[in-house]
């Protein structure tokens, strides 16, 4: 199953609801393009909702890191929401869990962005 992204706005934060697999090829490219488009349009507060991401490979992990650093370098904030256990474990073993700002509740995630 390939990845799908739907976008919504809540209180100035752009939430990307991702579902499927973030892997080399389609999933990674889709995520990269979506984040770049948002930043280009000036939407710099981005929340990636990974609740329905059932699989991510090293390329997908790399893409999350690149999205995070790209947003940060442009003065933005990119956070992660609702990690599945598999994605959580992968971020733990790659020591990225503490690099990302990871949230498990949408309302408090929205409230945490700099105003």
């Amino acid at each position: 199953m390939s990845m799908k992204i739907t976008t919504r706005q809540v209180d100035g934060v752009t939430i990307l609801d991702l579902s499927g697999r973030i892997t080399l090829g389609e999933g990674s490219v889709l995520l990269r393009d979506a984040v770049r488009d948002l930043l280009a349009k000036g939407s710099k507060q981005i929340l990636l909702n990974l609740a329905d991401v059932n699989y991510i490979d090293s390329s997908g992990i790399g893409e999350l890191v690149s999205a995070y650093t790209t947003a940060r370098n442009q003065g933005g904030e990119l956070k992660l929401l609702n990690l599945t256990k598999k994605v959580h474990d992968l971020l733990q073993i790659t020591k990225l869990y503490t690099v990302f700002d990871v949230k498990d509740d949408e309302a408090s995630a929205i409230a945490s962005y700099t105003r």
Partner: protein
Amino acid sequence: MLDIASSSKQTASYRLKRFVTHRIKDVMPKREEEHLAGQQASRVTYTLESSLDSVNKVEQTAEQMAKKAGVDEDEIFKITMAVREAAVNAVLHGNSYDPDKRITASFENTGDSLVIRIADQGKGLDPDTLPDPLAPENLLRGSGRGIFLIRSFMDEVHFKQLHPGTELTLIKHLGTAQSGS
């Protein structure tokens, strides 16, 4: 009496058939199954193009193999992911998607272990020169975690230089990985 017209037609047809068969063999995935003497185990080997479709094929085969061996869900995920990473390395970093280069993937259940070998025809890989993805200066890199994940998820990982190319052998010991054990 020899029918020359018919004979030359047959020759042309035979040549065409040989050519087509040759081309198909070149392009189509090749599957070989070996029944290993004196064992219940068998080894299946695929020769595949350097493409993402091949990566998916290898990943799916590993998943089926692990399920068939009665491995539990968490271990199936780890094996499948490690094998996918090895296939990605072979296709992307080894063969650089070169249409003239192939990857081979073999799958064997020895009874004690699942043994998966993935080989490419690339420039070769020296695992000792890979940067540590957990080092603070590498944490924010967008790549370089594949081999680390393979090593994290498998019980044994071996590298062999093929000149040209690299073969990775991934081993998961059964027993601890199987459901209910």
